[in-house]
């Protein structure tokens, strides 16, 4: 297992290098910089150039690149111009928002999606299967921003049960956090629920007719116990794969959901930075997000070993 860990961590280095090169390349290819945003929409080109000079944005690209990589090697991701704050600090401040949103969304998606997939497999081609898969398809097809607005309208405006936006830190008020995260996580979960339910169904159907499942039934176990204890366990590898991918997609989906629900997370930070051309944030944010994505994939690989003893031998 240690060997796997080391190999995968080493494999992450070129991934991070490519991502950093691409993100730096974007700064050269994409027009515009934050000076125009600071100077304002009707500022003259001279005004913008003055701001650029004040902020040191007019240095040659190679010099900026060397400076940035030098900083990264020393653990310094640069400094955001618009926030007047270190990039690492800015991202880490917002990471709890995005991670809690993603974590709650995936938890909801798993809690609903896996049982729905198992029921669909157990009642394949019967109405529960069609109902579960139909619902999954609807969840998969709805854009999360639209779903978010719909949830705001229903649970915020019409029913008044939950706040329409904003974030409460769990350390400040646990119930407030739960209330603030429920709608955005719900919107994000519904888009992830579909793939999880469908993958669970497919995997469960594949193992449902195996000999050991037949043996379990022959022992007199009820169908729910057969599915809960044996079919689910044997289906966990593909389910974990789709949950791992779902985590990455949820990080992407959080960009939109955070915007709709005014959550101060990494997604909103990066979107704001893109619109303002705050390059240090874009570069640092991309690098850190990639690192998280790689780390989650590694975690999924380790979980494979845990749920499937056969894979430990190979590792």
């Amino acid at each position: 297992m240690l060997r796997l860990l080391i190999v995968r961590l080493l494999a992450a280095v070129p991934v991070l290098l490519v991502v950093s090169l691409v993100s730096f390349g974007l700064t050269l290819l994409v027009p515009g910089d934050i000076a125009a945003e600071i100077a304002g929409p009707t500022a003259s080109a001279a005004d913008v150039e003055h701001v650029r000079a004040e902020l040191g944005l007019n240095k040659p690209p190679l010099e900026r690149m060397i400076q940035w990589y030098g900083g990264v090697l020393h653990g310094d991701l640069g400094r955001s111009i618009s926030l007047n704050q270190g990039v690492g600090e800015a991202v880490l401040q917002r990471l709890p928002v995005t991670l809690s949103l993603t974590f709650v969304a995936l938890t909801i998606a798993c809690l609903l999606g896996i049982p729905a997939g198992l029921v669909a497999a157990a009642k394949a081609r019967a109405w529960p299967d069609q109902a579960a898969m139909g619902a999954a398809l609807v969840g998969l097809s709805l854009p999360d921003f639209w779903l978010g607005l719909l949830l705001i309208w229903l649970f915020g405006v019409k029913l008044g049960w939950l706040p329409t936006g904003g974030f409460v830190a769990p350390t400040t008020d646990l119930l407030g956090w739960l209330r603030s995260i429920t709608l955005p996580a719900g919107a994000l979960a519904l888009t992830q629920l579909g793939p999880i339910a469908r993958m669970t169904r497919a995997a469960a159907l594949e193992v449902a007719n195996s000999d050991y499942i037949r043996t379990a039934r022959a022992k007199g176990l009820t169908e729910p116990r057969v599915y809960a204890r044996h079919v689910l366990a044997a289906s966990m590898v593909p389910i974990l794969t789709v949950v791992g991918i779902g985590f990455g997609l949820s990080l992407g989906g959080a960009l939109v959901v955070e915007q709709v629900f005014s959550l101060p997370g990494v997604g909103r930070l990066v979107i704001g930075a893109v619109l303002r051309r705050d390059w240090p944030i874009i570069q640092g944010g991309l690098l850190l997000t990639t690192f998280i994505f790689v780390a989650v994939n590694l975690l999924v690989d380790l979980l494979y070993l845990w749920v499937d003893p056969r894979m430990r031998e190979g590792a």
Partner: protein
Amino acid sequence: MLRRRTFTTGLTTAALPLPAIAQSVGQQGRKGGDVIVAMTAAPPTIDAQATSAAAARNISMHMFESLYTRDEGANPKPELAEGVDISADGLTYKFTLRSGVKFHNGKTMTSADAKASMERYAKVGTSRDTLKSVAAYETPDSKTLVMKLSTIYPGLIEAISSPRAPFVIMPEEEGNKPMGQINMIGTGPFKFVEYKPDSHVKMVRFDDYAQNKAYEKRDGFTGKKTAYFDSVTIRIMPEAGARTAGLQTGELHVLEVMDVASSKRLKDDKNIKSYPMLPWAFMTLMMNNNWGLTSKLEIRRAIQAALDLEEIMAISTDGLYRMGPSWQYPGTTYYPGADGLDAYTKQDLPKAKALMKAAGYNNEELVLICDSSNKPHLDAATVEAQQLRAAGFNVKLSVMDWPTVYTARAKPEGWNLWPLMMGIEPYEGPYNVVGFFGGTQCVQIKPDPVIEECNARLANQLKLEDRRAAVKTFQDRMYDQAISVKVGEAGIVQATRANVMNYAPYRIPRMWDCWFA
């Protein structure tokens, strides 16, 4: 010889007619509460001097004040100054500062603070060019700041009173700090608590705030300001639907802007009050006079004749607009009238086609660039593209994000048309409107000699009537040479919960002199 000009005679843009607002005269304000305001965008920086972004203004105008600022009708009025004495030769401005004004850090404001703030502005301020005629700042005593000009600049008070990128006064020790790195210490009715980027800005009432007793009540950005709310939280909420929903549920109390469709939908909601603001901005269509098709006068005139301006306004503003051809707002000091402009503002397709033929138009591409982040820009561009196609132009509509459009339009080539709302500039008066079309960095790319002369006359004529004549000449030239198109005047809607009392809409949602019922 110096003469005292405590207020604005002869200096100003005079009253900008704003909507009549029912002021709760006679009502007693009540202290308390945390008012939550939603604004649409995050500021690129909260350093007030360094940016002209409206989002920064929403925050900074609650915490900072200037020597002069603008009243309800956009006229320059004293704020931290008692007044100004201007020498007969127009080269010396002697500001007398108000006594007993305290900064949020407890320090009393002196002329040294004012000097350091103006000197910082001259280095990092967005509108720093307006201070280039100032040769020296002197502080003969703690209450007096003298600005010595090397050349006359009659627009100085208008310039330093503008809230565009406000000339705010901060403690002397902040004066040397680079762009974006100041501590938020001002003299305003609210003091800074925290800024959580992408989330909110929090301010609390400054209990040692020195009210300006020269006034009787709130007046634009100046006046006798009273802070009633214990605190102000400005939340950054980019999604319009979420902002409206927040106001409906009572989670938000004030919206910087509510889309017109929502304000119509909620007009019968007794919990919400809408405040239309008209005029708010000029809708314009800038033309590149330097490159391609629009370098030809006949083509620019053809574009002028091909556009149905009212249709563009009706669609791009959701119906909240008024037509007005002048490049100044009616009722202001420099308003040059609109006589003779009808010929330029009526759609005339046969005329457009004849001009295109005269120019030898042969289906060349007309490049219309537009940003996607501003809905009125995008809607206006879409309608303009269709109208120009109907006239026979081969229009290429390029939609990009704001920084890309800005970069593209600053280039001398590669674009012909660019829709732009000018919000704060026409509110300020003529200087930044005429100035936008002047100099080597002019928006139409190719400087026009007559407009250059107008800018010079605005800058160096001491008599108001001479400066007004310059604005008239500028306007005539804009139409005659079809330098760019003024489409119309757009409005916005601000909104509050019904329990926010004595609110009056303005360029920003002002959270002083209003309170919870």
